[in-house]
């Protein structure tokens, strides 16, 4: 294995592990649920992306063929992490978790709780 591949893979590995540690530190230290939601869903996703890039470099050099599985895992995680964060925020709105903030933030939270989901009207009951 040549030296430059080792340097790039090591730098990517250390960067990815540092960002994953940063996301978990944010998950522990931040005071509120909606601020805690920001730390793992962004920093941890960046960390796993950097780790997957490092392993793609190493195995592409070793086996001589392009690693499609790493790209598949990366694409899947990058697509599903925002969806999971959105679902968690919607579940936390209905569970009445404590929200820190000033009066404007509290009013916005109350307004967001009042919003009903859109109702699909059946087509045959519409009267023109």
């Amino acid at each position, binding site marked *: 294995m040549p030296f430059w591949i080792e340097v790039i893979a090591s730098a990517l590995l250390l960067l990815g592990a540092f960002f*994953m540690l940063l996301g*978990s530190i944010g998950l522990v230290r931040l005071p509120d649920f909606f601020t805690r939601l920001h730390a793992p869903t962004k920093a941890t996703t960046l960390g796993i992306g950097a780790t997957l890039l490092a392993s793609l470099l190493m195995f592409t050099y070793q086996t001589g063929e392009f690693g499609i599985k790493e790209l598949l895992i990366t694409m899947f995680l990058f697509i599903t992490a925002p969806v*999971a964060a959105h679902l*968690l925020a919607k579940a936390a709105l209905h569970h009445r978790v*404590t929200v820190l903030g000033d009066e404007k933030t509290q009013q916005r939270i109350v307004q967001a709780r009042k919003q009903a989901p859109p109702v699909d009207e059946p087509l045959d009951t519409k009267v023109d």
Partner: protein
Amino acid sequence: MLTISIMIACGMVLIALILNSWRLVVGPNTPDRIIAVDTMYINSIALILLLGMYRGSPLYFEGALLIALLGFISTSAFCKYLLRGDIVE
């Protein structure tokens, strides 16, 4: 040099897993615990990748792909249960 980097990265991910377990135990309400589990499966994917790089065999990516799939499905099922009280209506 790559082996030392893999060891240091394994240590950092292990510390991250311990912090997530602390949030899983202490978390004041249920969505906090769901976030902790969600972060823990992503860290487990990173640990499996590091093991594969240390052993030098590309056999471990199927396991990482399976964990990614089932982790997202379990998170969405938890949230659906909290929202609706039922998973499949």
